[in-house]
């Protein structure tokens, strides 16, 4: 079985409102996929559909060989889920909570409790969950999702409320698991964090999948300009550098910094000109379009009529 999750032409309607419309994608073994979109774009709905918490209006879903809509759940032993707002029974301690979830997955409780240390909760494990801060609940949410070496991890906004250090640890753990063959699907707003890490990005807008591919593929599709930022000396205000080809969109950021938007096919040519003899360029930065830019581009292109 190489496909961990298979979503085929799935639509979910609540009354007249369509939360998700005609979405299809497959997630293979060991893939690390970022699911991004505005609030209400259908990210959480997709995760709930995969968990069988809601049933699709039409279309089919398969998760680890189960059809979640039919109430099949054998494969869920190998599935970890972290909800957007981790809410746990306030009367139980962190350790009891973790042990409870380990038993439900038929995994050794001792092993599961070690995960509490991994997320930095060992000091608070004996305290009631009701006394935890949001960040601590988030960590416990992560610890329970990691019980028993999951084959599929569905993480809904997993890094909100985590401090930068733990965020780092979180991505290390996730990337190690992905390298070992776990399929990770994580929905997030923190695009800059995902940029380096996600092998693949799925962009949702108003319940429709608007883009799906690796960041490089999406960059190519979006044809967004690369920003070339130059530090130029001895340039009069309002004057454009003479060596720039006419028509190249450029901006003066301040006295001696010029920013040029270079289309993908002009990039190399522009760099040649800029670094040629006789220009007064002192320094240069090349900023490729970020995931933020790509995201904004795909949203705009689908909004346009």
């Amino acid at each position: 079985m190489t496909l961990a999750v298979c979503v085929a032409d799935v639509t979910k309607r609540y009354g007249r409102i369509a939360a998700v419309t005609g979405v299809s994608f497959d997630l293979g073994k060991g893939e690390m996929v970022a699911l991004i979109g505005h609030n209400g774009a259908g990210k959480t709905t997709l995760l709930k559909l995969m968990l069988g918490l809601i049933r699709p209006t039409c279309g089919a879903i398969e998760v680890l060989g189960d059809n979640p809509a039919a109430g099949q759940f054998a494969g869920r032993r190998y599935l970890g889920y972290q909800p957007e707002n981790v809410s746990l029974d306030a009367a139980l301690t962190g350790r009891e909570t973790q042990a409870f979830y380990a038993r439900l997955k038929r995994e050794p409780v001792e092993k599961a409790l070690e995960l509490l240390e991994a997320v930095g909760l060992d000091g608070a494990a004996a305290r009631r969950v009701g006394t935890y801060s949001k960040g601590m609940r988030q960590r416990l949410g992560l610890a329970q999702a990691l019980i028993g070496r999951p084959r599929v991890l569905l993480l809904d906004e997993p890094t909100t409320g985590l401090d930068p250090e733990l965020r780092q640890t979180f991505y290390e753990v996730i990337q190690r698991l992905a390298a070992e063959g776990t399929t990770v699907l994580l929905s997030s707003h923190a695009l800059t964090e995902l940029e380096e890490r996600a092998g693949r990005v799925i962009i949702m807008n108003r319940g429709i999948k608007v883009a799906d591919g690796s960041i490089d593929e999406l960059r190519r599709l979006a044809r967004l300009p690369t920003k070339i930022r130059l530090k130029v000396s001895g340039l009069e205000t309002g004057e454009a550098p003479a060596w720039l080809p006419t028509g190249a969109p450029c901006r003066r950021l301040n006295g001696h910094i010029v920013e040029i938007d270079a289309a993908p096919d002009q990039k190399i040519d522009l760099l040649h000109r800029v670094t040629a003899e006789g220009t007064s360029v002192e320094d240069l930065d090349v900023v490729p379009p970020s995931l933020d830019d790509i995201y904004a581009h795909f949203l705009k292109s689908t909004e346009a009529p």
Partner: protein
Amino acid sequence: MNAAIVACKEIRQAVRNRWVLAATLLLAGLALSLTFLGSAPTGTVGVRALDVVIVSLSSLTIFLIPLIALLISHDAIVGDMERGTMLLLLSYPVARWQVLLGKFLGHLTVLAFATCLGYGLAAAALLATGSRIDDDSFAAFAAMIGSSVLLGAVFIAIGYLVSALARDRGTAAGVCIGLWLLLVLIYDMALLGLLALDQGRNISAGVVNAILLFNPTDVYRIFNLTSFANVRMFAGTAGLAQNTSLSAPALLAALILWTLVPLGLASLAFSRREL
């Protein structure tokens, strides 16, 4: 197995939240005060003391046990959904009916513990003060405790059904209070009024029996006030219960049915629910 894991968690939570303590203290306190104060007016202090306690305790149970059961159960499904804990639980390899069964077993254990301990204390107190209690009375008392737990099970199941159908916690609580008023107070009053108006012309004893079976609290009352000869003696004013010809096994079967049907419907409603 999954149901047992969920049940253990529910029991632990109930202990932590002081539910167990509160319910036990309440039942024990009322049972003890009825035991010592309630038997004084009858004048039969001593020999038949426990029988008198059964009559008064079973009347109390009809008000109290359904209330406690509904308090525990009305929140079980819709409350967990609102708090968001259900979302995570259902992402685990556990079927929804197992979650419901686990909660039921857990809550019933809590209620059974409180009832046995609370009412048991009353019997123990009678023994300790030197009352002589014969075997018939003990059997009737044990049957009273058992049927009280069964009545609790009925209302836990009814509470789950409401909880599985209700949109939010407030609605569930309101509907449960309404059901409690209806089944515990209004139903009997309405029936008595109806019988008084009718003067026995149209409504036969068979119809009355059938009407009584439609209310679990009446089933409980008839079971406790008529099943044992020694108790029947003191239950002279128990009104409707006098004329019924329903046998004890039939009444118990009715209570069990009253548990299983709402529980099954709750499971069905829960399994179709989206969250």
